[in-house]
């Protein structure tokens, strides 16, 4: 059965590219442009993995991550964080909040896919 992946980003072109990439690899992909929409989707149709941008309008990716981890219903969901900011402290903060992985934009699509597969327990 295909894993469901939720892509959360406010940049339409990035959502477009990630959606196409993941769908091509056989995942079911949902998208959200901000934190609240993302949490709504998670509640409605829990994904196996969330690809989460940090710089989101109104609610930051950190906050979304914190809420996901505080919600027992969302316990098994993997979180892969993306950021355009390159500071180490942000990476640490994300991991401390319970993210499983942290990638810096722009990323290599191959690497991204490898990480997604690994997180979802699929060996390449």
């Amino acid at each position, binding site marked *: 059965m295909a894993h469901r992946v939720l892509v959360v980003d406010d940049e339409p072109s990035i959502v477009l*590219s990630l959606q196409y990439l993941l769908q*091509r690899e056989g995942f079911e992909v949902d998208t959200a*442009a901000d934190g609240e929409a993302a949490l709504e989707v998670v509640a409605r149709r829990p994904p196996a993995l969330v690809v989460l941008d940090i710089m989101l309008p109104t609610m930051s990716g950190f906050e979304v991550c914190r809420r996901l981890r505080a919600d027992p219903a969302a316990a098994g969901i993997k979180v892969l964080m993306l950021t355009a900011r390159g500071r180490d402290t942000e990476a640490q903060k994300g991991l401390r909040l319970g993210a499983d992985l942290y990638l810096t934009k*722009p990323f*290599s*699509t*191959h690497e991204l896919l490898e990480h997604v597969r690994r997180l979802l327990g699929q060996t390449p």
Partner: protein
Amino acid sequence: MLRGWVIVAVSFAYLGVLFAIAHWGDRRAEAGRSVIANPWIYSLSLAVYCTTWTFYGSVGRAASSGIGFLPVYLGPTLAAALWWYAMRKIIRISHAYRITSIADFVASRYGKSQLLGGLVTIIAVLGVIPYISLQLKAISGSFAILLHYPEIVMPAQAVAHHAFQDSALYIAMILAAFTILFGTRHLDATERHEGLVAAIAFESVVKLLAFLVVGAFVTFGIYQGFGDIFRKAQEVARLRPLLEVGSAGAGYGTWAFLTVLSMLSVMFLPRQFQIAVVENVDENHLAKAIWLFPLYLLLINVFVLPVALGGLMLFPAGVDADTFVLTVPMSQHRQELALFAFIGGLSAGTGMVIVETIALSTMVCNDLVMPVLLRLRWLRLNERQDVSRLLVNIRRLAITAILLLGYAYFRIAGEAYALVAIGLISFAAVAQFAPAILGGIFWRSGTRAGAMAGLLSGFAVWCYTLLLPSFARSGWLPHSFLEEGPLGIWLLRPHQLFGFTGLDDISHGLFWSMLANCAAYVGVSIARRPGVAEASQASLFVDVLRHTQSPERPPYWRGSASVEDLLALTGRFLGPERAQEAFLALARRRGREAVAELRPDAELVHFAETQLAGAIGGASARVLVSSVVQEEPPGLDEVMDILDEASQVRAYSRQLEQQSRELREATAELRAANARLQELDRLKDDFISNVTHELRTPLTAIRALSEILHDDPRTRLEDRRRFLGVIVKEAERLTRLINQTLDLAKIESGSAEWHTSELDVAEVVREAAEATSQLFRDRGARLSLRLAEGLPRVRADRDRLMQVLVNLLSNAVKFCAPERGLVEIRLAERGAELRVEVQDDGPGVAPPDRETIFERFRQAGETLTGKPRGTGLGLPISRRIVEHFGGRLWLEERAGPGATFCFSLPVASPGRAGATTMVTARGG
């Protein structure tokens, strides 16, 4: 019947007891077991203040002015409270510098001035002699009265007409002999007379007891206690005023002056100085004396009023109230009591005379005679082997002379004055020392010239207002001198000087003399700076409580001397053995075996001088020592060096202070600068972080889509075309971002190029509308232009202005209502500037964003209409451009939907005023 020989025998027996006590005291002192080394003896000996003037005179004064006798005792009581500050300092100074008398004290303070010492001595002798004569008068008077027992005959009627039949002469001679025995048995370096002090303390007990016994006899023997006497006195009309405060002769002004006067005299009478300072063995005794001495004064005054009132009620007029202490017991036929009262009076008189005469003779010898003798070269005093005998003899002569002078005054002045008045005149004389002494120990700037001027003027006024009038009353001067002033000059009447009335004679004299004294002392002291010797003595005296740890250390001294010379010199005045002992003791203190091993340094010279000072006074000692020492007085150069050094140190410390202040300021500035730098750093960091974010976002899309296309050649054509479109758009976005970032950096750093010219804003607005027309068409929005005509030109860069307008218009079209949106651009003249307004019908800007949208990389409305296409640099750049031309750019706050961005530009030049007016008229 009291026989004369009984009285004389008892008197001599009493004097014999005194002498025995003195002898015993001296023996104990020599054996090192001092009897006076306790505060009780010290306090009792201070009661030498109470003379026959107290013993007989208080009752006399109380009989005429009620409690008007009290100020003389209130003063000392108040003064005692201040002793810990003033007296302790005087004692400390005197012990440290071996001061032997009040004259020595003043002379030493003001640069060891012989002249000043002589002046103080003269004032003291002249001032105190009447006081001594008063004692003689009282003793001889009481003797005469007692001799007529049981009849009561006043001494005025009994006085002998020939000097050789006059008991007072014999009393004077006997007292002289006694004083010589007491006071000049040997010459001590410290001028201490332990036996004498013990005897004086004993006398204080005797006179107090005698007065208390008489008082108790009157109060409880004749009457039934205090209440009885006062009640009975109340019934006698002439006595009633005595029981009221402020009765005749005791106005409040008089009270105040008398209190002050006796405050000063209890410190500066030569005998008080002798007992309180010179004979003091331990300054801590003062602590107990501060309350014991006033207690003594209280006790001796308890029965004054009862005795006075009792006497007044017992006797008809004609019995002198000054004799009541003696005559009241006589009237009751109590001869043993009368005899005891006589002995009490005798003890009060002898105590005063002995101590006063010793003190004066020391002053006369050290400060008057020796300085003169030392100057008389033909005496070759410097070369005599042992001068100590000569010194003793001078003092003996002085004692005799002083007592004979006292007798002479008694014979001449006679009955002109009551006891109290004579005592007060003496008080006023010694009060003249107060400014020089008190100023000397507390005020560093008091100078020799000032002290001299003060003493001379105070003494002169004292002579004129108090001494000469007493001569006039004795008949030596015409009485008109008092009534009409000298040569009939009304203003100079000695008791109403310059027409000043309302005070009694004593207060009046004290007022003028102290005024002249203080004014001259302070005035002259301030006018002239002290010399080197004066300044160094001044600091030794004023700061004595701070540095008496090493009193043997002179302040500034340079010179050379030999130990033998100093020893020989000291030996000549102290006696060779005593000098040898003193030098040996010093040598041992310094850890050496023999006198010869002493180094003839400044300290040794100072030591010798101090030893000599004990014998002959500071001023003479100074002269003698300098005769055997090759002294180099601190020359002007040296003084200047010292001053220079001091001022350099001051300058240096000022410099240091300034530097440390500057350092503090610099530190604060650095800290602030650092904070600014950190802030800038943070801003730069934020900026870079923002720029990176803005660069990475499009790059992410470009890279991801490129990799998709590259990896999978089988991508559908439709997707391929869509992805390439996004890539192109994102690449454009990157380019725009880079350009705008560089643009902003150039504007901010001031390196942007500006092609400024006068231009027509309306024309530029039209061009901008043209340039953005495609955007409007794409959004299906409409642009409306409302531009005023014939507006003045502004000075600006056309391309930059275009950039601003395009930015505002594209922002507006981005946010305006979708499909049928409307944007309006208006141009009008407002005062001296043109204003452009761009209004859209979009959602407007939320209040929190109104200012932040002008910051870099801040964009509003992101979630409402999806991600707006912009770099977040448009508004910041536009604002800086407008500001560069002297205008402003802001967001107009306005009710209703939509946002209105405005900017203004100043009108180019006043030359276009005509056109402006025209436009305004059209606008109106």
